[in-house]
């Protein structure tokens, strides 16, 4: 098995994937209990893609994700307490309750946001890449987006500009087989998504997004290449979400058999078994990782419950930065 990390890193990857899984499952429960409002897009099934890609980044690199954003925040190190509190709409949420499920953000960890508009994040990631290039740092920006977003105008526009200006952006298309409820073959003329940047001279690669080591190996190579060459690349991570597009999804567009087939490839037990087989972790240690994740999510829910809702007086906070050179009424 190539790409298997050192013992401590391997354990941390499994821990983070497990944490994301339990976080998402609990979030689903909390949604059913009306603790969470709006839409809730879970990334259950996509944990290897999330951890494999984010672990290819340095702390100083930037990460931009989509509206399926909880897992990316957690993988980047945002405390689950803050993410859960955001879902609960509380003041201690990572965005103070202004963003919700689709709009996680953590400036300290250079997690530059979840974005609610499909494809809207690609130009923003390109702009962050421009700032890195402009200021002469060797930071890389990793931008994830779904297979559905590869049909948006911003996909062609942003990739063209990034290639033209030689910006350090790794574009990762998370091919989870569906743009909401429309399957890849029904929404994209080219289903070999890694090739969609070819007309712009952007090389593409693909990784098995259900395999954390394979994902990490491919994306780490892409990140190094981009850091070195200062040119964008496109990586297709092939994965599957086990749950619906959002909690409001009767899943009439796919069969139970198809879901069951992909569930057999569940990335978390697969990676756990691999580590056990290699003698890196024993069964007891795997069990311990699972229990620790559950305990942490218990604490996150407790924290979110205890955190107050934002005060009514805070409604207008952070709409504008008030400036001494501006007078008059902002609202």
């Amino acid at each position, binding site marked *: 098995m190539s790409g298997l990390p050192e013992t401590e890193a391997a354990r941390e990857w499994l821990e983070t994937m497990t944490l994301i899984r339990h976080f998402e499952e609990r979030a689903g429960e909390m949604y059913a209990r009306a603790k969470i409002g709006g839409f809730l897009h879970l990334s259950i099934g996509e944990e290897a893609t999330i951890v494999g890609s984010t672990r290819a980044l340095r702390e100083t690199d930037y990460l931009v994700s989509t509206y399926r954003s909880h897992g990316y925040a957690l993988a980047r190190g945002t405390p689950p307490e803050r993410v859960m509190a955001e879902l609960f709409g509380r003041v201690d949420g990572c965005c103070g309750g202004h963003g919700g499920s689709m709009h996680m953000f953590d400036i300290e960890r250079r997690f530059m946001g979840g974005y609610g508009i499909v494809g809207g994040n690609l130009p923003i990631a390109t*702009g962050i890449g421009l700032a890195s290039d402009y200021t002469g740092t060797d930071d890389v920006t990793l931008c994830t987006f779904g297979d559905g977003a590869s049909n948006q105008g911003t996909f062609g526009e942003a990739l063209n500009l990034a290639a033209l200006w030689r910006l350090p952006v790794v574009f990762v298309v998370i091919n989870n087989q569906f743009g909401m409820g429309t399957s890849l073959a029904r929404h994209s003329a080219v289903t070999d998504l890694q090739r969609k940047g070819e007309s712009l001279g952007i090389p593409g690669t693909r990784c098995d997004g259900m395999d954390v080591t394979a994902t990490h190996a491919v994306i780490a190579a892409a990140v190094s290449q981009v850091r070195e060459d200062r040119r964008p690349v496109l990586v297709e991570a092939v994965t599957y979400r086990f749950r619906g597009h959002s909690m409001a999804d009767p899943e009439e567009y796919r069969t139970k058999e198809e879901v069951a087939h992909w569930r057999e490839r569940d990335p978390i037990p697969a990676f756990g078994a691999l580590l056990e087989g290699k003698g890196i972790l024993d069964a007891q240690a795997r069990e311990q990782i699972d229990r620790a994740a559950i305990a942490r999510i218990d604490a996150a829910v407790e924290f979110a419950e205890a955190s107050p809702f934002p005060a009514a007086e805070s409604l207008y906070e952070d709409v504008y930065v008030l400036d001494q050179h501006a007078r008059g009424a902002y609202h």
Partner: protein
Amino acid sequence: MAQLRYREALNAALREELKRDERVMLMGEDIGVFGGAFKVTAGLLGEFGERRVRDTPISENTIVGVGVGAAMSGLRPVVELMTINFALLAFDQIVNSAAHIRYMFGGQVSVPLVIRMPQGAGHQLGPTHSHCLEAMFLHVPGLLVAVPATPADAKGLLKTAIRDENPVIFIEHESLYGIRGEVPDDDQVTVDFGHARIAREGADVTIVGVSRMALTAERAAETLAQEHGVEAEVIDPRTLRPLDLDTILASVKKTNRCVVVEEGWPHGGVGANLAALIAEHAFDDLDAPIARVSGADVPMPYSKPLEDIAFPHEPQIVEAALVSLGARPAASGAR
């Protein structure tokens, strides 16, 4: 003070801010080699180089989005869109990203981005290049909206826009690029946002004119004085957000009559908004209904005689003021 054209004043503001702050950079279609569709950026590529003055592909939504991302991570980008109608291609990034990022991410980041664009009729460019859409941007919390009418304001407001931490929609007027006016040479002189310009003092009627209409209103005021003995006070708000409502209300308190003039469409427009605010705050000061003069409620036609009657001119403002003063019978309202 120097006599500069409006476009030269904008150019001076960009040059000074590029010199002052290394983080300032320009992006837009044909702003470099071509010098800008209206020559606002002429000479800047040669002076500051490709790194800081960037020609972009024709990708409005992405250009603005790139500006947002760059602004979030430390730069102070100034994006030029060739006309205000093209900004509609970028509405996703302007509204969902630029305007809302600070709020939706709980104040962790700001978006110090300026998006410049010209608006306005008069050049027979028809229904996709001539509109006045400031109301669409004014509608959105999170954006600031500047509408300079004079060369001095063009320079001073643009410098303030670049220095402000918020996303600013900076709306220039196509018909004003060639006008001349006194402009301060001092690179430290700026014009504050939310500070209206009293273009002419008068005690009989208040006329608020937006963008080019501030100048048309000034000419109308001269006619009112010379031909009708009416002294109008003309107010140019200079920025629609933040809005210097206090100056407008103080004037209405003095004159007891108000005419609001805009070039854009009447429904849900800037004039409708100003009229509502004035009615809410100064109802008891008013001796006549607030009058609105606006562009016609049609897509801008190409043919010269039609285009000419599709946006306000001096006589309509004079007429509205006289109606407000009771010197003329009221005609039907805006339509």
